């Protein structure tokens, strides 16, 4: 049997609320697998247990019941973290470090050093386009810059798996698109990605497979295409069509017994419009 990149088995997490008798069930009997090379999107409303699941997978929070593994190694072992890069939600790093120092610090934690570390640091600063800010302290970084240094930090040891908790939160549309392109690039290089995001449009563009959590329960899971395609409908977008042609098509459709569900002028997306307006015209 091939090794799963992530495997979660009957995971339950209960948070006791201090000084009260209630408890919060953040995750309830969750089982899912992420296969190597996949981009897996974990979706769900606020408080549905996405971040909690990720933290358990990374061994930051112990599960109440069940188990999680990364490439076959249980999350409770430190070694399981050898090949994972993690970007936490609202990443905060040491404000007193510069961008470059931050990457060097995390590189050292992963056992890099010397020329190799320097090389990797430069490479990643270029990748996330923070070369100009490398000597500035993170205390002065904007939210989007922090997110990007966070991504670079997650990639420092060339991990086989990336766990990204809302990688595009607070990033402007252009930056968000860049991050999307980076993720697609990771996918091409065979890196497995587990991500969660509220930007469903983006999730749809990059994920192979999704799982939807609702109040800690996995309510839907499967290949994205299968989940969202409407089997008995077909979309047809025409350019420069004449009114006669349209009339003819409509007549043919009526004859064949099919039904037009909707007919409209396609609109550009707000995202594309925004990017068009704000892109540097050089």
């Amino acid at each position, binding site marked *: 049997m091939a090794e799963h990149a992530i495997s979660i088995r009957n995971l339950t997490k209960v948070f006791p609320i201090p000084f009260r008798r209630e408890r919060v069930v953040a995750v309830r009997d969750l089982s899912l697998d992420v296969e190597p090379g996949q981009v897996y999107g974990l979706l769900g409303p606020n408080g549905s247990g996405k971040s909690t699941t990720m*933290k358990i997978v*990374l*061994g*930051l*929070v*112990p599960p109440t019941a069940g188990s999680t593994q990364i490439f076959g190694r249980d999350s409770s072992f*430190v*070694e399981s*973290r*050898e*090949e*994972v890069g*993690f970007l*936490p939600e*609202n*990443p*905060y*790093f*040491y*404000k*007193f*470090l510069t961008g470059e120092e931050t990457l060097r*610090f*995390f590189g*050292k*934690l*992963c*056992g890099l*050093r010397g020329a190799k570390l320097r090389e990797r640091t430069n490479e990643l600063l270029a990748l996330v386009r923070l070369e100009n800010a490398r000597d500035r302290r993170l205390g002065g970084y904007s939210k989007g810059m922090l997110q990007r240094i*966070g991504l670079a*930090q997650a990639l420092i*040891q*060339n*991990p*086989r798996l990336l*766990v990204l908790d809302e990688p595009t939160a607070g990033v402007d549309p252009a930056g968000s698109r860049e991050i999307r392109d980076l993720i697609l690039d990771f996918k091409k290089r065979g890196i497995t990605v587990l991500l969660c995001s509220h930007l469903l449009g983006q999730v749809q563009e990059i994920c192979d497979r999704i799982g939807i959590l609702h109040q800690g329960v996995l309510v839907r899971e499967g290949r994205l295409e299968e989940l969202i395609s409407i089997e008995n409908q077909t979309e047809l977008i025409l350019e420069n069509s004449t009114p006669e042609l349209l009339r003819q098509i409509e007549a043919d459709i009526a004859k064949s017994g099919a039904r037009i569900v909707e007919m409209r002028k396609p609109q550009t997306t707000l995202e594309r419009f925004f990017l068009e307006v704000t892109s540097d015209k050089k």
Partner: protein
Amino acid sequence: MTATAHKFFSPARIGAIASNTLLELVRLKVFYFLLIFALIMIGSSAFMVRFTFAEQFQVLKDVSLGAMSIFTWLLSVLATAMLLPKDIEDRTLYTILAKPVPRLEYLLGKLIGVLLLLLVSTLVMSAMFAIALYLRQQTVIAETMRTTPPEQVAEAIRNIKASTFTINLVPGVITIYLKAALFASLTLFISTYASSWIFTILISVAVYIIGHLQSTARDYWLASGDAGALTKIFLAIVSLIFPDLQLFNLIDDIVAGNAIAMAMFLKTCGLGVLYACIYLLVAYFVFANKEL
């Protein structure tokens, strides 16, 4: 990268965390407190004229070593108390522990960072102290040359030199450092389960007071003769959990010029290191199971 086996104990990782901790403290500008220490040294010299030379050295040693002791202790407690809560609150801890970093290495790195800070501070303060002592010595010698009959000058200067730099200053400074190190470890331990740094500091201060009073209290109770079995057990428990900090206080002996017994000094050092290790170990057991 896949081929490298995970090292369970990596000095490089601990070094990275320790130097990062030291850098954090340096960039928080904690070293500025050394200026206050320098001011105390200068200020205390202003009152010297009224004393005999022997008294002058005693006062200088008393004030300097006392200030060093308080400052290193305060620095150790304050600096350590904020380290963990800050990392947890800022979630930097998540990013660190999401790397292959065992929790023990994280704690050890933090502790070593503080110990380095304390070491640098102690060395700088010792240097300031030595300079102050030397300047005072020179002033006193110059004065003696003027006032003493020539045939007694050599003798007088020998006396002065013998009472300035004495060998027992070294164990004095070392025990001051060890006490601060012990408190760094203790404070780290408290901060692993405390909910706020204020709580951590309060407990550390309480331990400091108990640690200093316990030998006095013990002597008092045991001397009064009416200590029951319960009192004795209580005292035994207290002295087991809390180090007897009076042992670390060599200042009175140094000021009085008493020789410090080597065996006693080594025992104190051993005790300091032992307590520091025990606190670190307990800290690890709490931290290993902590929900972040």
